[in-house]
């Protein structure tokens, strides 16, 4: 008895049963009125010019930080990606060993969440705009590097070998053979990273690194819900516009690149790309000037309070098993909730198009709403703990997984669903059998990757007492316990690297389709998680 593909997609939703059973035990019910006020304020955002001015200013800072952090991560990621590519080393030096070492080194900055980088840098150099930019650029750069090197190493090498055997020098051969196929994929991926950078910049703001996130947190803590929604709606509009613009650009530039080589569009596309690249440079300079980002200020470390001698006994006496178990539990709960709820909700609303639109709106809110703020909101009615943290992280990732599922559903299984509808099947069963069959493997593969991201993200809900390494780490940071901080960062890095390895194995297993003669739809591995880091 082996569950068929559509059931795999629904099985994670079973986690709802224990979650719903546990919720009454952790709810205190005191804040339902506040939650009601929060929800009602969504329809009455403040239109006070002062509030709007402040929100717009905050949004400008967040967008600027995101743009600069993103550009930095791309530059860093491209360079390090090339430097850690096996095929590049093999072509240039004949040995791919150094690529492996660089890859292993890059795993460390990648495994530490941008929030941790931000808080660490904050301790070292004080509050300045460059902190948030660098905090985004470092882990994102390491992620981009991994994707670029993975992409490079999986491209066909026949052209490269032909050019090399014809006597072409290594750099020229690499650029000619691998550059054109790499470019569209990197462009597509970098667009996705820009969306992530905007989300991260908002999150860093929540922790006091400036911009709209700070405004959102302050308004939430002072219960100024109407002002909060002014910021939230504006952020939603910007996020949806950005997603739409990037989707349009992806279709315009990246997707047709290899299929329309004989069309005039390629010339136009190349011109537009160069123009966009050149246009980006002055824009970045302008943003950096407006935000007063000074890279040199990062070199001036502020005086830290005197660190006492390392107390490794105290470090060893930390409740490590409990911290690690809670972190893992938080991750598994949040990931399972997000992975399971997205298809379940899609099934529920399938017969009603209007509900589908509402669901998309809710998912968009989940994507942009920083998890710590959701956690703070949940604290109005729930006690702090692992489950509260998991719900906050789950809601955020549900927004991301839901959108991905919708995108994949648009291109997978439509004819099968239509055939079932024509045979009189109800809309939900037609969706389950017709579309989810083809989606199951790539969707769950992406879910496995997402779990790995959630593990890294679990630090961000530490703030609200979701016990685990994250909260302990924030405590160590605020008490300047350098020894504990070092041990916890290392433990986090090790755990996330282990999680990354497990998620990679799960993804490979899921994408290893046993019978692939005539797959329908796309949902290819790269999109389903291989490259979407």
């Amino acid at each position, binding site marked *: *008895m082996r*569950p*068929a*593909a*559509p*059931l795999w997609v629904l099985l994670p939703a079973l986690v709802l049963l224990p979650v719903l059973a546990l919720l009454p035990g952790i709810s205190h019910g005191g804040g339902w009125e506040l939650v009601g006020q929060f929800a009602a304020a969504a329809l009455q955002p403040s239109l006070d010019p002062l509030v709007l001015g402040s929100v717009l200013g905050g949004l400008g800072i967040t967008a600027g930080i995101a743009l600069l952090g993103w550009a930095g991560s791309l530059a860093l990621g491209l360079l390090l990606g090339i430097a850690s590519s096996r095929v590049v080393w093999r072509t240039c030096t004949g040995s791919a060993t150094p690529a492996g070492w660089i890859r292993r080194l890059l795993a460390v900055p990648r495994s530490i969440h941008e929030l941790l980088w931000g808080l660490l840098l904050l301790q070292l150099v004080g509050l300045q705009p460059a902190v948030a930019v660098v905090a985004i650029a470092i882990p994102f750069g390491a992620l981009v590097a991994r994707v670029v090197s993975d992409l490079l190493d999986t491209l066909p090498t026949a052209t490269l070998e032909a050019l090399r055997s014809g006597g072409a020098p290594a750099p020229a051969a690499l650029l000619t053979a691998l550059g054109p196929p790499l470019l569209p994929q990197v462009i597509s991926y970098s667009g996705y990273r820009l969306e992530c950078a905007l989300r991260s910049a908002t999150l860093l703001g929540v922790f006091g690194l400036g911009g709209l996130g700070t405004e959102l947190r302050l308004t939430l803590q002072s219960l100024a819900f109407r002002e909060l929604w002014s910021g939230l709606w504006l952020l939603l509009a910007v996020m949806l516009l950005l997603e739409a613009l990037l989707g349009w650009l992806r279709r315009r530039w990246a997707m047709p690149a290899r299929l329309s080589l004989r069309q005039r569009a390629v010339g136009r596309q190349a011109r537009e790309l160069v123009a966009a690249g050149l246009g980006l440079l002055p824009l970045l300079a302008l943003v950096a000037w407006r935000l007063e980002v000074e890279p040199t200020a990062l070199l001036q470390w502020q005086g830290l309070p005197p660190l006492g001698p390392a107390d490794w006994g105290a470090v060893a006496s930390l409740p490590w098993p409990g911290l690690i178990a809670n972190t893992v539990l938080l991750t598994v709960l949040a990931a399972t909730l997000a992975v399971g709820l997205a298809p379940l909700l899609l099934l529920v609303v399938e017969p009603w198009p209007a509900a589908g639109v509402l669901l998309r709106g809710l998912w968009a809110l989940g994507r942009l709403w920083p998890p710590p703020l959701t956690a703070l909101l949940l604290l109005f009615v729930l006690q702090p703990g692992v489950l509260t943290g998991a719900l906050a992280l789950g809601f955020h990732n549900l927004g991301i997984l839901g959108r991905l599922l919708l995108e994949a559903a648009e291109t997978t*299984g439509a*004819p*099968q669903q*239509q*055939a*079932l*509808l*024509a*045979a*009189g*099947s*109800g809309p*939900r*069963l*037609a969706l*389950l*059998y*017709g579309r989810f*069959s*083809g989606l*199951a*493997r790539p969707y769950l593969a992406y879910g496995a990757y997402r779990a790995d991201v959630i593990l890294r993200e679990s630090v961000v809900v530490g703030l609200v007492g979701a016990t685990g390494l994250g909260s302990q780490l924030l405590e160590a940071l605020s008490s300047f316990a350098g020894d504990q901080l070092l041990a916890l960062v290392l433990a986090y890095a090790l755990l996330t690297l282990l999680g990354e390895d497990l998620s990679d194995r799960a993804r490979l297993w899921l994408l290893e389709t*046993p*019978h*692939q*003669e*005539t*797959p*329908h739809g796309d949902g290819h591995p790269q999109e389903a998680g291989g490259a979407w880091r």
Partner: protein
Amino acid sequence: MPSLLTLESITVGGRSQPRLDGVSLRLEPGERVALLGPSGAGKSTLIAVANGLLSPDHGQVLWQGEPRARRRRARRRQQARIGTLWQDLRLIEELTVQQNLNAARLAAWGWPRALLNLLLPLDSPACAAVLQRLDLDPALLNQPVSALSGGQRQRVALARLLRQEPLLLLADEPLASLDPRLAADLLTLLLELASPPRGLLLSLHRPDLLAGFDRAVGLRDGRLVFDQPCNRLEPGQLEALYAGAEP
């Protein structure tokens, strides 16, 4: 006995270039009707109107003498009696043959059975019976569809149609892209299955395969050009139907 399907003055699409333009057609139980016409004539649109996937902009569709039900459940019951064989078969690759066959019963099944079928395929005897009727080995029931050969897939799609137990069989260009032997086999099977009280409406690209049909309906530019018994069809009518059309 009322007609199985009646299309009355069906129009689909804008007035400047309608995909179907005032088409009327009647299909009786046991009748085997071939739908002819060049590419773009509106054959697939007519099939989509007949199986309920497409609602006409003008005109009326009657099922067994009654207008198409407006309520969802009643409409689904009507659609469950109309089976379609698609040119691309539309089998679900990730499921087994048995799960695919049972997918044809989803209209009659509730959620519990539909979910159970994904865990433990149901109704093995009924599924084996339809396979045997099409000369397929019941051992195929546990095979994933993606492991089947082209000919087996054709027959499994037909078996799924039988499992649906429809009164009207619709087929949209089922013989296109098949080699001559497979096409002849499939057509013979379809004509056999369309015994009373079942009816068959099959869109065809090849007038040379009209032998087993009772009636031929010619469509061109969304309009009905002829509708008459096959044995009274003049060669000139077919030539006129395809004249100037792209091969």
